[in-house]
């Protein structure tokens, strides 16, 4: 109880600070020319008796990685003398940072009491010599990476007009425990957690728009059926157990419907069902396979895979099944479409030999290959559209990688054993 009160207090403080320091919208901080902004991160200094440099280092390193992957900054960890009056009362001397060529500076302060951790981060504009963002976080020691990611997300909102994706987690399929099960991790691979324990092939996770529930396909009862589970629970609720396949479930953006592939009437066709699994409404009528639906962010359209014209291609239709058109015009063998959060692009997997990830405009123009090393599958956009997670096999086991939306910065993030595939981001929350 005491802890909850403290947490509420912390949240209130956080809100008030956002109000004053953030001054609502976006401050245009741009570097001259086309160079990236240079940002220095000084590991947070201790407040109080407990001195744990490893905590400060971990927070700084997490932020350096986030900021680097955002593609907007050259972020470096820099050591500096602690501010003698603490973060709140000291006057920042901007001159050394300015002369070292930095545009931005992050300094922080932490206090550890038992297991309770308080952290404050401040972002300074070196050029205009003023603080741009102040955030204070209260929680436990295990929250320190979350605090670090959260500050970078806010920093991106302040400097670039949109929150970053770094507080999101990635759900994925791993064979670490034997068969394929669903796991979750922070976007950078930390805090690995096994979600399902079906003891059977379990694949294709998708997260509800409110971030509270997941759906997935599992063979736990022998047939590939669709299940739902609250992330706070360990109970799998059968949603669609119709004869044949119940695969590639995808939540509609408003959370009221699920699009999925069912073969109950013969070949695999796309249907809509309610979030409780009821009232299947058929969307496609073909003699072919239709699956892997991906909703446009406004919920009006669905991209999907179909081999109705021979090789599997990506198609787009209205969410009621009308106006079907083929999107991809390459030789075919295209899978796993993922509609971008901005609505303008669709990432997909193309196979010729190995798999590679492509991105294409929704009008069919600008088809661009993003990966070429190894075999790469299943692109999924971060909630802000800045990053794409995918699975990659480059030599050893399959692992989850993350890259920027333009294909740069491809980095392995999963640390789980076995093969890791089928990544999907949890939404902003």
């Amino acid at each position, binding site marked *: 109880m005491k802890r909850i009160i403290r947490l509420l207090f912390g949240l209130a403080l956080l809100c008030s600070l956002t109000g004053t320091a953030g001054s609502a919208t976006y401050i245009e901080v741009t570097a001259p020319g086309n160079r990236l902004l240079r940002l220095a991160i000084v590991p947070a200094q201790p407040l109080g008796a407990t001195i744990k440099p490893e905590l400060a280092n971990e927070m700084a390193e997490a932020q350096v990685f986030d900021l680097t992957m955002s593609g907007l900054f050259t972020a470096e960890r820099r050591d500096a003398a602690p501010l003698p009056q603490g973060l709140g009362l000291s006057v920042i001397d901007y001159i050394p940072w300015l002369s070292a060529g930095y545009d931005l500076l992050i300094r922080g302060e932490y206090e550890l009491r038992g297991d309770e951790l308080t952290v404050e981060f401040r972002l300074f504009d070196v050029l205009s010599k003023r603080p741009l963002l102040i955030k204070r976080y209260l929680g436990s020691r295990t929250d320190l990476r979350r605090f670090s990611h959260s500050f970078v997300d806010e920093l991106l909102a302040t400097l670039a007009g949109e929150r970053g994706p770094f507080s999101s987690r990635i759900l994925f399929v791993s064979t670490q425990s034997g068969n*394929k099960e669903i796991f979750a991790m922070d976007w950078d691979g930390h805090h690995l957690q096994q979600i399902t324990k079906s003891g059977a092939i379990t694949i*294709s996770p998708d997260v509800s728009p409110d971030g509270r529930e997941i759906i997935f396909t599992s063979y736990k009862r022998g047939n*590939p059926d669709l299940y739902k589970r609250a992330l706070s629970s360990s109970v799998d609720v059968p949603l669609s157990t119709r004869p044949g396949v119940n*695969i590639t479930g995808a939540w509609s953006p408003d959370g009221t419907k699920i699009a999925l592939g069912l073969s109950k009437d013969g070949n695999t066709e796309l249907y809509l069902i309610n979030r409780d699994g009821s009232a299947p409404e058929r969307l496609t009528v073909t003699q072919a396979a239709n*699956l*892997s639906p991906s909703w446009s962010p406004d919920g009006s359209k669905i991209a999907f*895979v179909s081999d109705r014209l021979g090789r599997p291609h990506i198609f787009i239709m209205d969410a009621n099944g009308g106006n079907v058109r083929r999107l991809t015009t390459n030789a075919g063998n295209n899978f796993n479409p993922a509609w971008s959060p901005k609505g303008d692009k669709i990432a997909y997997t193309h196979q010729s030999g190995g798999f590679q990830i492509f991105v294409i405009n929704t009008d069919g123009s600008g088809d661009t290959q993003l990966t070429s090393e190894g075999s790469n599958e299943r692109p999924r956009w971060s909630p802000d559209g800045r990053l794409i997670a995918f699975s990659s096999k480059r030599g050893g086991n399959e692992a989850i990688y993350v890259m920027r939306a333009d294909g740069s910065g491809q980095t392995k993030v999963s640390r789980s054993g076995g093969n890791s595939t089928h990544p999907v981001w949890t939404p902003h929350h």
Partner: protein
Amino acid sequence: MRKEFKGLMVLMSLVALMAAGCAKEEVIKKDEPVVQQQTVKQAEPVAQVAAPPVQTVAPVVAPVQEQVAAKASEAVSLATVYFDFDKSDLRQDARDALSQNAEALLKKIAGVNIRIEGHADERGSDEYNMALGDRRAKSAAKYLTNLGVKADRISTVSYGEEKPAVQGNDESAWSKNRRAEFLIVQ
């Protein structure tokens, strides 16, 4: 002594049953409207039908009833059917294998139910391959029902690329993994 006698009786009736099966088979074949299979059937079943009785007769000494019954169903192994890449239509070799399977299902193991498991090679997305394995299993099921096997004896499940028969990343492995397997469930 009595037990042995009983076992022998069961055996004999089993053999008789099989003989009846053989006789009946001719009839079914003549009545069957599908002509395309005629040539294949003439070549294949002769050897096949001849073989099992020898096997069942051989363990005449085996006294226990269960043992005989077990042998009888063991003797029947339903042939796996293979497919071309990204295809679920049946090649000639698949049709031949299915005809054999149908024959067994109509006679030797007329009382059992089967599950057809559809599989795919590793190319294509995991889920696309589930849809493909589903099509393959259903394609095999449909052919069996066309040959007279009752649909309610057959169930299907697709495993996509999840359960390869052979590990490997080349055509020799893939061709063995694009398949439908037939499992006796009861």
